[in-house]
């Protein structure tokens, strides 16, 4: 802590850290107050730059038309180039089965998932999270042809 009261440093372990601050004034009979400060340090759970193999990823095809999927790594990007889908073009039919790749740990609880997305097609694509198995997950997808952004759960 500096002479001006600034507490500084770099956390190196994840966890919740409690700091108890004691404040005393300069009156003849000092008034004392306490304040709790909490610092939450989060770990980087997972990082992927797509060089080499798809070793950490599991591919699932559940679309029944124009498959199978074609996932590959190109110039540090994960690319899916097949037009696999479920054959149901109605935007209101929300299953929209196709193909997906998942990674990580089923125990991950609170997290931020950040990635870059791009589509050269006009069909649906997006991300999944809190994925337990093929019957239990959230999926956020965007579709240009059918004009929607949608969060579903299964």
């Amino acid at each position: 802590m500096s002479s001006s009261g600034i507490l500084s440093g770099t956390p190196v372990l994840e966890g919740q850290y409690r700091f108890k601050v004691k404040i005393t004034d300069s009156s003849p009979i000092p008034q004392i107050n306490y304040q709790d400060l909490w610092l939450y340090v989060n770990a980087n759970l997972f990082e992927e730059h797509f060089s080499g193999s798809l070793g950490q990823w599991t591919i699932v095809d559940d679309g029944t038309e124009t498959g199978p999927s074609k996932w590959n790594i190109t110039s540090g990007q994960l690319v899916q180039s097949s037009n696999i889908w479920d054959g149901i073009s109605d935007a209101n039919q929300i299953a929209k089965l196709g193909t997906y790749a998942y990674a990580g740990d089923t125990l991950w609880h609170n997290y931020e998932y950040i990635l870059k997305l791009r589509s050269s097609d006009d069909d649906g694509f997006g991300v999944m999270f809190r994925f337990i198995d093929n019957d239990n997950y959230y999926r956020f997808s965007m579709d240009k042809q059918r004009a929607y952004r949608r969060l579903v759960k299964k």
Partner: protein
Amino acid sequence: MNGVFSTVTQDNVAYTQNSTYIAKISVIEDRIIISLNDIVVFDVEDASLTNGRIGVYCG
């Protein structure tokens, strides 16, 4: 849940083909915040699933 799809939320915005989006999904307890290029798209509460892996999807 358990194999049955349901919609949590949606809008009718189409994406721009060949544009790159930086997507950020924040899941904190039962709150789900989805942002594209630092703009919040959806901010909802849903406690159906509390943990799990990540994935990418085409369909």
